[in-house]
């Protein structure tokens, strides 16, 4: 059945379709005029999410590119500054070469020194170069010039980074202390104070003293038809164990073939580990029959044989006791000691043969008698190339042990340096913090996270260790004070269990400014980390604490001064005090040098005591001790320049020649630091490429998602327009005819 078509239904239908077409047309028009496919989130919700994402990425790419441009200005400036520096260093080196030759004289050298001076100035200017308002060579201290004219470094060793992409960080600065001037940057030490001690500066040598009392012995091999042991004569003098073994062997072999037996194959060996001599016949078939003293001689005791040996049925004989030291009355049995700056006491040891351990006991006994028990402790340190140590019972900077040679050779036998007095050391002093400006102590108030509060009186603390102990000893507040991993700042840790941690950890100054000066005056929900305390280098600084706690292994340094060469062994030095004492020891008096901490507090210095010469110091082994301590060497180009100028002014030809080595080292370091910047520059270039490509791709993706396809939309639009027209026209047709038209 055909449904009834009523007017109202017709109108409704027409209206509905017309409106629908018109709405579609408007929607398309909106797309065309805005150019976007998505004008409301509901048009395509998932597409909308992607669009927002792409927009974020594009916005951040813009900024990465901006960062990279900014970073490149830094890197390019550093690059050109360092190239210029390289040129200046080469120029200075060639000047040094020309002035080292014999053709140069005081006048030319003086003239050249002026030029060196101006090159030096220019290098410092280059090291103070800026990008905009920021200094480039000072680490993160970018608001003040890193180098002052005296060559002291005022920056730090922080690398600065910029973001060159998502999660990609690129370094943009250079660090002056890597190649221009050493900054020892010591970590804070909380090591216990040590007493003054004396150590031997080299291996214990010349243990065996041969003289008229013990220079003859008798030996016989089995089968010797001579029937009587033969005399062997030793030359008087001091010997190491190995040397004495060799000498004895030589003297026995001198007997040649005697009594039908060949003494030429006899071997004598010294075992350093056990301090035993072994005398072997050299022939497995021949026994070493006799080994005994000649009349009136105590040779066999010196060699460690407890009794004369006769009728030995073995091919070799070995000494029974370990003998390291032979103390002979009047020869090598006394020395003088002064403890803690007190009166000097003369010490005499009982004559006899001693092992190291028994010599320690004897020394201790004699010292106790002279000074009283417990004033000085004697020990023998085998872990450190055989050294004796005498340690004052007091600790700290007032504690010292001084040895004087006395009338004879004991010190030399024991390897102890005369006139070598070493002070004790203390942990880092509060007065040395903040580059020497220290901390104003007073009372601080600590409130832990459970609400417990206590006042802590820090006055009276002298070392950082004191501060930590004082805080940790306070009852009633559950906090622990300690140093951070880099040992540069104090960390206050709240030790309450989580349920008890109700509030912030807060520290304030009640009197004085300790909390502020230490950087712990904070109020935080968590642990408090203080500021970098930047201790100055002092005699008390431990070697292990240098370079932020990395320390350095020290070895030999070579010194040349005015034609005199020498080596100083710094190995095993525990503190800067040790180094200064070793360099300044009397045994080095021929070198005429003096070691000290530089006034900047950032490195050590060795200078000539002779006004006409310049002392040069070189690394004596792979430990590179001179460079490491900032005395002279690889990373101290500025110092090298100053030395050259001084040498030229003093007309010290030797020194000028020697400095060339430092220039080579310096150039190498500069290249190395330059390479870091070069790598960074490459990284930035690559990042630009990556980001630009990403930008293009993302923009493409954004456009694909968001933008309307104009061509398609326009054609849809015209189609829709036609559809609307058609619907309107047909609508007009259908509503018009009515019966009324046809009724007359």
């Amino acid at each position, binding site marked *: 059945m055909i*449904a009834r078509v*009523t007017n*109202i239904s017709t109108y409704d239908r027409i209206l509905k379709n017309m409106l629908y077409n018109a709405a579609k047309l408007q929607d398309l028009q909106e797309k065309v005029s805005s150019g976007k496919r998505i004008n409301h*989130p509901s048009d395509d*919700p998932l597409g909308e999410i992607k669009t927002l994402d792409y927009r974020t990425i594009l916005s951040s790419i813009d900024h990465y590119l901006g960062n990279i441009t*900014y970073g490149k200005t830094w890197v390019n400036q550093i690059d050109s500054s360092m190239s210029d520096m390289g040129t200046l260093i080469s120029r200075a080196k060639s000047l040094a070469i020309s002035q080292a030759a014999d053709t140069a004289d005081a006048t030319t050298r003086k003239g050249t020194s002026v030029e060196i001076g101006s090159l030096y100035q220019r290098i410092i200017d280059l090291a103070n170069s800026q990008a905009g308002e920021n200094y480039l060579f000072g680490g993160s201290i*970018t608001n003040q010039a890193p180098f002052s004219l005296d060559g002291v470094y005022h920056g730090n060793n922080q690398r600065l980074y*910029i973001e060159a992409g998502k999660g990609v960080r690129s370094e943009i600065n250079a660090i002056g202390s890597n190649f221009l001037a050493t900054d020892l940057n010591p970590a804070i030490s909380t090591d216990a104070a040590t007493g003054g001690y004396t150590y031997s500066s080299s291996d214990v040598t010349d243990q065996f003293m041969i003289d008229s009392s013990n220079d003859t012995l008798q030996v016989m091999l089995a089968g010797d038809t001579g029937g009587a042991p033969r005399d062997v004569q030793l030359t008087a003098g001091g010997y190491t164990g190995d040397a004495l073994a060799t000498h004895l062997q030589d003297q026995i072999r001198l007997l040649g073939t005697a009594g039908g037996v060949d003494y030429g194959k006899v071997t004598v060996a010294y075992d350093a580990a056990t301090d035993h001599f072994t005398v072997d016949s050299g022939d497995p078939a021949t026994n070493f029959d006799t080994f005994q003293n000649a009349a009136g001689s105590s040779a066999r005791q010196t060699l460690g044989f407890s009794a004369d040996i006769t009728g030995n049925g073995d091919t070799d004989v070995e000494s029974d006791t370990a003998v390291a030291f032979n103390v002979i009355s009047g020869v090598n049995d006394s020395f003088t000691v002064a403890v803690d700056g007190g009166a000097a006491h003369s010490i005499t040891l009982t004559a006899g043969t001693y092992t190291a351990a028994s010599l320690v006991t004897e020394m201790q006994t004699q010292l106790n008698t002279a000074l009283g028990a417990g004033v000085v402790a004697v020990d023998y340190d085998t872990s450190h190339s055989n050294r004796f140590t005498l340690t004052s019972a007091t600790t700290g900077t007032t504690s010292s042990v001084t040895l004087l040679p006395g009338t004879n050779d004991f010190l030399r036998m024991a390897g102890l340096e005369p006139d070598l007095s070493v002070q004790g050391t203390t942990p880092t002093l509060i007065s040395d913090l903040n580059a020497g400006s220290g901390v104003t102590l007073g009372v601080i108030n600590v409130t832990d996270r459970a609400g417990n509060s206590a006042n802590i009186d820090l006055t009276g603390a002298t070392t950082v260790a004191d501060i930590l102990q004082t805080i940790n000893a306070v009852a009633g507040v559950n906090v622990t004070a300690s140093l951070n991993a880099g040992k540069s700042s104090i960390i206050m840790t709240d030790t309450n269990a989580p349920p008890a941690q109700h*509030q912030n950890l807060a520290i304030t100054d009640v009197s004085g400014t300790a909390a502020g000066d230490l950087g712990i005056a*904070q109020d935080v929900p968590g642990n408090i980390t203080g500021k970098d305390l930047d201790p100055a280098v002092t005699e008390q600084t431990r070697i292990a604490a240098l370079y932020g706690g990395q320390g350095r292994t020290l070895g030999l340094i070579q010194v040349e001064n005015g034609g005199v060469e020498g080596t100083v062994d710094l190995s095993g030095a525990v503190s800067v005090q040790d180094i200064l004492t070793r360099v300044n020891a009397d045994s080095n008096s021929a070198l005429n040098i003096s070691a000290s901490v530089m006034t900047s507090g950032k490195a050590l210095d060795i200078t000539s005591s002779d006004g006409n010469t310049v002392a040069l110091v070189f690394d004596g082994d792979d430990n590179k001790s001179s460079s490491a301590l900032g005395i002279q060497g690889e990373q101290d180009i500025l110092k090298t320049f100053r030395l050259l100028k001084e040498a030229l002014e003093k007309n010290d030809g030797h020194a000028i020649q020697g400095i060339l080595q430092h220039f080579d080292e310096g150039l190498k370091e500069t290249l190395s630091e330059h390479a870091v910047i070069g790598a960074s520059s490459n990284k930035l270039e690559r990042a630009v490429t990556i980001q630009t490509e990403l930008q293009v791709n993302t923009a493409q993706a954004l456009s694909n998602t968001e933008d309307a396809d104009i061509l398609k939309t326009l054609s849809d639009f015209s189609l829709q327009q036609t559809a609307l027209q058609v619907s309107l026209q047909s609508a007009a047709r259908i509503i018009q005819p009515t019966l009324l038209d046809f009724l007359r």
Partner: protein
Amino acid sequence: MIGLSHALDISKWALFANQLAINVVGHNIANVNTEGYSRQQLMLESNIPTTYYPGQLGSGVRANAIKRSYDRFLGVQTTSELQPLGYWEAKNNMLKQVEDVFNESNGNSLNQAMNTFWDSWQQLADDPTNDASRTALVSNAQVLASEMNHLHDNLFQLQKDADAQVKYTVGQINQLSDEIADLNTQIAQAEAGNQDANDFRDQRELKIQDLSKLIDINYFENDAGEVNIFTAGGRSLVQTVFSTHLNVSEDGTNHGFSRVMWEDANGGATDITDALQNGKIKGYLDTRDKGIPDILADLDRVAAGLVNEVNKLHYFGYGLNGTTNVNFFNPLTPSFNQDNGNNGDAGITGDIYDFTALSRDDYQVDFQTATTYQITNAATGNVEGFQIRSGSNDQIVFDDGGGATTITLTAGAYTSDQLAAEIENQLEANSSGNQGYTVSWDAANQHFLITNDAGNTNPLTLSWTSASSTAATTLGFATTADDTLTAGQTATSDNSADHTFQYTSGADVFYGGIRYRITDGSGGGPAAGDQFTMSVTQDTSQFMAVNPDIIQDSNKVAAAQTSADLPGDNRVALDLVALQHGNVMRQGKATIDEFYNGLVGSVGISSQSSENRVNHYQSMKEQLDYRRDTVSGVSLDEEMVNLVKFQQAFSANGKLISAIDEMMKDLLNIV
């Protein structure tokens, strides 16, 4: 006598009938465009014949009744389709406006502001000493905060608009109820005389349809012709000739928004807001009470994520002059609420004591009994947290070579991870051989793992069977067997851990960075089934603002990590740049950007789907309308034909009358 007068009579009645018919036709034509009009037809019937010779003699035509063409079934279908149509129209209307609030398409909105904010940190990281970068950062942050405020305000305004619509709809409903009741009266009166009140019925039908668009209704007609209309849960709106009004009352716990009230017979008001199910009013109520609040809650989460995570990094950094411990944004403020349906009388208050420990999830406190409760994380749905009570469940007995050792856990509230860490600390501190252990909480499987670290020489025995291990049940370890672990072995708690908290009125509880306090009210304490909620994200978008100290002095913006490395140190600024890509939302599974973009996307999806539903119901209605029109609509052409028909009949009858008249004259002439 049956004679000419009979025929005249017939003609007379025929004339009347045809006149009447033409009247009806005229009525139809006049109402061709009237909405809801059903075409009427005059029912003609032949008159009662008289018994005559030679047969029954017809007596002409009689108008019987005027009937309207009306399909009742279509009416019911229409009203049932109109209810969801009204609902979705209301929702769609609001959602389109919500969509416009987000307005991301022209790139001028929150997404843009956030991008600019992150990029400002990049700029600052390039050169922390640059004053221009700092100023730009602070002002971009202010723009971001005010953009967030605007979004919140706009959405809240839409909420208020929805509320206004609810009130207006209630007014409309009341008016319609009144009109329908009136029409009921009139129809009842009219039909008392056994006549169909056609026009009234059309009008009433229309009004019922209008009403069904506004609110969900059931209706039926009684014998008197009155329609009784019922709404939510069987409450009557129209009963016979009486209408019951709906009212609105302000809900103090919901910004003063309106609750829909129904006046019962005794004059009391019943809150039927939750019983409503369909219609425009429900659409607006849903948008006002769920749709927009959900969006606002997500927006608040975005704002809270920004505020707290930025502050966490910024607080520990150093400004250009060495200032530290400065918040970048004003810190979060927590809100604590008790559920409306609580039977007990306890109240909850609190604050944030450690913003670095906040999870930014909402928490629910559910009372199992009047004295015990559990904490549920509203975001994950898991019950979490532990309460260790001194002397009750705070001890664990273990032995790792030094004999039986008892550890006592510090009393208080712990998050699950915190408790694991505390147990680990205590085990290691009391280990006889300084051995290391690893204790952790497996969130996926909701149990503890205790591991004797590989490389340890002594085995670890956890003495759960010992009566002194009071913590065993709380941790979920069975007390029937000890766990002995050699190096590398792990013990897992078998049972569900016990997350029960004991309630103490007025006691501070520290949990997850929040300190809360539930206190008995004047009417007593909490009852079993009571619920409290804690949230740190609520309303953050409304109040988000840059710390005025920062605005006043941009040097306080902390870019440096340590004061020693000022001024070039930019590590905190770099960390803040990296925060953009950090997974700080959704328990560590989404970034802030992803979360916000997802929110915009879901608004788009809701809007798209509501539009689809509207279109769907709209076209259903149009189909029904069309079918109704085919039955009840007026066709002018048809009426024209009818007009001609009846006109001809009228003329014919007129002709008959004149013929009869002549015949009468003839008769008279005969006499």
